[in-house]
């Protein structure tokens, strides 16, 4: 059973304790949207539909995935997504 540990914040606490997310792009024009299949049942159905709809809108897409939802993505897979996509949409299925 995993438990959380903690340290105390040495900063002036002017920023969120969570790391800031990157701002979403204003437009998808010219960007490649990664469609990431985590390997769970029927997530492909959802991503197929998204891929089709984005294609109709002229948005570039690229499919990525990992073999099983039971394991985290390997560094190689994450690096590949970072190299080849600008934004990522993850299909969680169910």
């Amino acid at each position, binding site marked *: 059973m*995993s*438990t*959380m*540990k*903690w*340290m*105390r*914040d*040495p*900063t*002036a*606490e*002017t920023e969120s*304790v969570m*790391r800031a997310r990157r701002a979403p792009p204003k437009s998808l024009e010219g960007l490649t949207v990664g469609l990431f299949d985590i390997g769970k049942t029927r997530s492909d159905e959802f991503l197929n539909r998204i891929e089709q709809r984005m294609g109709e809108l002229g948005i570039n897409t690229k499919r990525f995935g990992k073999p099983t939802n039971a394991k985290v993505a390997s560094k190689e897979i994450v690096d590949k997504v970072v190299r080849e996509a600008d934004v990522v949409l993850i299909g969680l299925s169910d």
Partner: protein
Amino acid sequence: MSDPLIRDGLVVFAKRACETCLLVENEMRRVSRELPGFRIISQDDPQFPSDVADVVDDRSLDLSWLHRIEIMPTLIRFKAGEEVERVEGWDRAGWQRMTGITDIGGGLPPQRPGCGSMSTQPGIYEKLEARHSGKTWLAARKVEFGEHTDPVEVCYERGWTDGLPVTPPTDERIIAMLKGTMRKPDDIVGRMPPNLADCTVEKVAINAVMAGCKPEYMPVLLAAIEAALEPVFTLHGVLATTYFSAPIIIVNGPIVKLIGMNSGINALGQGNRANATIGRALNLIVRNVGGGRPGEVDRSTLGAPSKFTLCFAEDESDPAWQPLAQARGIAPGKSAVTLFQGHGPEAFVDQKSRTPEALTKSFAMSLVKIGHPKLVQSARAVLVLSPEHYGIYREAGWDRVRIERALYEETIRPGAELVAGADGVGEGIPASRAGEQVPKFHEDALMVVRAGGAAGLFSAILPGWLAGRSRTELQPVTKEINE
């Protein structure tokens, strides 16, 4: 007292690893036999005393901490959950009175001092305090991470380090650090640039933990922060400048020996914990509390290793020498920090001058090069005078005032040599000053500090920030350390 174990009656706290407890082991057994409800609470071994049933196991030391036990053994009487009487160590009359057994300890000496309670040992006490109360009174927010995550890496990921690993600021370590000062954790030391964030004593302690400080360094660090926050120190500018400068800390007084600072061999270098971590803590506080990070408000073109830390003590071993702090108004016998905006060190070598006059001229040749040989009246400088070079002045009877004055005079040069374009070099002072005799420094801009190992006709120059367009615009700051 909320523990139902000991609401009423007598209890004794003891441990096997205590000579006095071993001495009274038979007496504890006897009380246990004759007084129903008597409880023995053992800190280190629930089988001690042997042959006693139901010894309370306090190897966690929680009960000892809750009852503020300091001495082994401690006999306490409770009534309705409240403590009404306590005897520490072995005191025959006290034990006879409290137990009502009039002949107990008859064969023992009347008194015997006890041993220390394990709950008060350094390191253990802080853990207990963190477990029982620190979690509620520390104000800094918690940053959680998974059990299997390396906390040092968490500090890196969050941008809390200067590039070197930091000690993770856990509650136990922060509470131990706060023991190093009488100041309250929520006292505000000042507003830390560049973001002008309130810097509490607790935030100082957290960053001191990360830097690797010991609790006894806290008074020095707090004084250094107060000095850095004096407006004439211009800490925001020191951080933001494209130049090389950072706060340099020079420590004087009795605290130097107390915390083991180095003023001798390698005083400006690595290897001494206090020297290394006090300076580092100040810079971490600017980074973490103030938000001053390289590439953001810190715009230094090249930076300098001294931006990690440059903190050292002055050698006060020669009673003929007036220490820097006294020269700057601190009473003898008091400790102080002096903060200087600078970097370094730059090497100075002279193995042949044997008179104070020759050595002063020699120093002047190096001092005029600070920043650029043709730039004048902007930077201050610290001259770190080694024992061998100092010996030449001492033999001739020169004191601090005379050395500093002579260095000022020897660094005055003809303006014609310094004007822009002279010697084919673009840098320089305006042509209008060609006819003047131009000093390199303002009159109060040189500080001599004694430090270094006994061998070596080497000294060091710590060049100051080239921003002092007037002599009052930025100044070093000296603050007494409140121990």
